[in-house]
């Protein structure tokens, strides 16, 4: 049974096909409005995530399907001590496909190993969040028209940011990618990603601490939030949280076709005065996420039916 646990589970060709489907959905939404009639998506959210859950639910509803599920662990059988493996087996009897978020890393793989229907990883702790990466990829494709020969800047928390790690992994499979890593010393990209992904793929990268210095060369700027929950020490968080704030003034030196992205939610790392700039793509990114989830649900259900 095919599932999506990590973005690398899909080949570049499969990702390209998903993007083509998503673009076709954008152009011809009515053609897809009944494609999942009679099918049920189970959204198993063991930790709250309004945005991702609603994106999945909206995706299934726009395909004509139905949605069941729960939005926190306390309202699931996990509160009674049921194992995740058993939950996955039971839900497989009720639904045709599962989207699951869980605070433990590797939880989606356990669910996929035990479910008899496809499982989509909607985030497993700090490990993977492949559908965010799908949203990021469609955004890049729609805004830039290509994946190759791009200079991509990642700014903020590059140490704990799973969306950054996943997108770097996904982009490493395209030609001519250059990466600029902008972060404070304490939140630098982990060395194993530099070694196992960037160096292995022969991707040139530079590490900077200054956002202004990086901006003029970028085709894409991927901003991230410094996450309070990742810090053991509140003082460190307070010291680092305002380190990078993108505002209209900083964008003056940027390319006219720069694409500014953010996985959201933002706190203050992108000033609201950037929202009006045509280069701000982060709200379009949310919409593209729904289309990619629609394409993904279709692909996995079609493969399961074969």
């Amino acid at each position: 049974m095919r599932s999506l646990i990590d973005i690398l589970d899909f080949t570049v060709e499969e990702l390209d096909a998903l993007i083509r489907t998503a673009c076709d959905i954008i152009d011809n939404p009515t053609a897809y409005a009944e494609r999942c009639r009679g099918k049920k998506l189970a959204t198993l959210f063991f930790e709250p995530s309004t945005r991702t859950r609603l994106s999945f639910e909206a995706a299934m509803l726009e395909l004509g399907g139905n949605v069941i599920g729960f939005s926190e662990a306390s309202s699931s059988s996990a509160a009674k001590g049921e194992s995740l493996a058993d939950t996955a087996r039971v839900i497989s009897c009720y639904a045709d496909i599962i989207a699951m978020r869980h605070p433990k890393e590797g939880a989606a793989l356990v669910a996929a190993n035990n479910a008899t229907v496809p499982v989509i990883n909607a985030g497993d702790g700090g490990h993977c969040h492949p559908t965010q990466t799908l949203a990021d990829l469609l955004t890049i494709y729609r805004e830039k028209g290509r994946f190759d020969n791009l200079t991509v800047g990642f700014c903020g928390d590059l140490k704990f940011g799973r969306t950054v790690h996943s997108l770097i992994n996904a982009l490493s499979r395209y030609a001519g990618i250059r990466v600029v890593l902008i972060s404070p010393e304490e939140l630098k990209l982990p060395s194993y990603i530099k070694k196992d992904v960037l160096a292995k793929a022969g991707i040139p990268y530079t590490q900077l601490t200054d956002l202004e210095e990086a901006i003029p060369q970028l085709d894409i700027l991927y901003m991230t939030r410094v996450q309070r929950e990742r810090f053991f020490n509140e003082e460190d968080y307070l010291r680092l949280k305002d380190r990078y704030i993108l505002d209209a003034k900083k964008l003056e030196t940027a390319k006219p076709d720069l694409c500014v992205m953010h996985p959201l939610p933002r706190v203050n790392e992108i000033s609201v005065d950037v929202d009006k700039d045509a280069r701000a793509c982060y709200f379009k990114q949310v919409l593209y996420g729904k289309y990619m989830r629609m394409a993904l649900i279709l692909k996995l259900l079609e493969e399961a039916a074969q």
Partner: protein
Amino acid sequence: MKIDSIQNGVVIDHITAGCGMRLYELLGLASLDCSVALIKNVSSKKQGHKDIIKIDADIPVNLDVIGYVDPGATVNIIRGGVLAEKRTIDMPERLVNVIKCKNPRCITSCEQELEHIFKLTDKENKVYRCLYCETKADNH
């Protein structure tokens, strides 16, 4: 120091000096009823120093454990006092229930009866990662 040769059993030889105790633990040799000798820091022409383990019983030995801890070790099966078989060791692609993931955020920390599985991700540098959370296993 002299340890008697064995008639029927297993000799794990050419263990990198210092790795013998780790192998002894991971192979669960403490629970055996037969005689087991762990000899540390034996002089070796090839290695300078090495460890040796002798097990005085013809028991199955988990070669994956040896391949994980010390792929340079050799395993000799002794029957009737002579070398009956020499097993070659390689680093296993997967390790099942040999070591545990130490990441407290890993699903293995709370899911009942879940096997602890590690996969070999970098043979050159002997890197094993948890199948679930991809946390790197400690160097032994």
